[in-house]
């Protein structure tokens, strides 16, 4: 117990969380602190490039083994399945209409790359090993949930606003996905030698850039929460409980698939996180009847801060205990 508390303290007092908290505080205090739109997008691109490249370089050293395939299978299954759990809860508990419930469910089956990046950074600080192939799992989990969400909406009689070809192009060619997968491939091809060439750009400044990005995320999260007229108390409860369910499913499946505790923790984080970049745009195209303010406020204003502050250390502690270690 003492270990868990000291772990939580160490995580909560890390620069990452404190910069996020600064953003939240400034946002709630209505400070005029803002990160310019273009800078925020640039920081996001940097993080995708860095995490993708480092993951690919690690993959070059690791190779495509059975553990990698097992992790990919677990991730894809999780992304397909989580919306099936979220949908009836949103319909029953939150009394949401079918279209909005399907859209929100798709967000919670998909993943948040920034939550993943923050988790890898925290694991690194704690000295917990994880493998670069988990970045491939991140990319693989973006899309399946969208298909489940659209199936749930279609089954409820919703009309789809976009042809599957155009939607597929939007999802697969989403800028973040292209950069993440592309950087992963370049990292895989060039390996450690390639990493050494650009490590001064993607390794050393990484945490500083992540702090600046999380400052912006804090500002945005506070603004979403402040303007949160689109969500009610039951939806907020969903935004806090659903990550626990996703984390439990991801962590347990990860351990059952034989993943090392660090990788299983990241699988839990991926199960717990909700998309607020790729899925909102896809849902806007495919289900224009759904209100994006609901899903984005839940994913960004509730679930993201929860995962960053409480979720990640909690998942790490539980997974490590289940794996028979000490957090």
């Amino acid at each position, binding site marked *: 117990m003492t270990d868990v508390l000291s772990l939580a303290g160490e995580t909560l007092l890390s620069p990452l969380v404190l910069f996020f908290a600064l953003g939240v505080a400034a946002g709630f205090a209505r400070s005029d602190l803002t990160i310019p*739109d273009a800078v*925020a*997008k640039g920081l996001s691109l940097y993080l995708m490039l860095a995490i993708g490249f480092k993951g690919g370089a690690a993959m070059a050293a690791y190779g495509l083994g059975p553990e990698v395939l097992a992790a990919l299978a677990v991730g894809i299954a999780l992304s397909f399945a989580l919306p099936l759990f979220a949908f009836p809860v949103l319909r029953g508990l939150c009394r949401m209409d079918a279209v909005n419930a399907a859209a929100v469910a798709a967000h919670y089956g998909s993943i948040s790359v920034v939550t993943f990046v923050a988790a890898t950074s925290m694991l690194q600080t704690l000295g917990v090993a994880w493998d670069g192939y988990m970045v491939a799992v991140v990319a693989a989990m973006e899309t399946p949930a969208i298909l489940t969400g659209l199936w749930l909406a279609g089954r409820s009689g919703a009309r789809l*606003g*976009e042809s599957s070809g*155009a939607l597929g192009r*939007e999802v697969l060619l989403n800028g973040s996905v292209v950069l993440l997968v592309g950087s992963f491939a370049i990292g895989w091809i060039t390996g450690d030698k390639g990493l050494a060439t650009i490590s001064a750009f993607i390794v050393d400044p990484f945490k500083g850039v992540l702090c600046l990005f999380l400052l912006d*995320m804090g500002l*945005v999260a506070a*603004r979403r929460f402040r*303007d949160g*007229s*689109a969500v009610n108390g039951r939806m907020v409860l969903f935004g806090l409980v659903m990550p626990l369910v996703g984390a439990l499913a991801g962590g347990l499946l990860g351990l059952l698939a034989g993943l090392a505790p660090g990788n299983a923790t990241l699988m839990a984080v991926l199960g717990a996180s909700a998309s*607020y*970049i790729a899925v*909102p*745009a*896809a*849902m*806007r*195209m495919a289900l*224009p*009847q759904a*209100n*994006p*303010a609901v899903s*984005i406020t839940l994913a*960004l204003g509730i679930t993201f801060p929860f995962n960053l502050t409480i979720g990640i250390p909690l998942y790490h502690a539980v997974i490590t205990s289940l794996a028979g270690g000490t957090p």
Partner: protein
Amino acid sequence: MTATRPHHPRRKIEILTPMPLLNRVTALLKAHGASGHTVLPALAGQGAAGRWERGHATDAESCVMVVSVLGADRADALFDALAPLLADAGVAWMSDVEVLRGEKY
């Protein structure tokens, strides 16, 4: 003596559309014979679904303004074709305008 101003009546259609629907809006413009259009950024706004601001984390809520000018017959057909696309998100309006260089439209 003042020169007579050339009189070219046309219709201007302005469409405020969510970013993810932009490609479909411009495809409709092309399909209805619009010879050109301009896309303008919109910073923030408020509608039935609440407030939105440009570019924070996702473009799903960001909107842009598309402006196009064309002849009355094509404008009416385009306006009708936009209705189902903008049934749930986005708005459009049309007004009578006069243009210079009428041969462009």
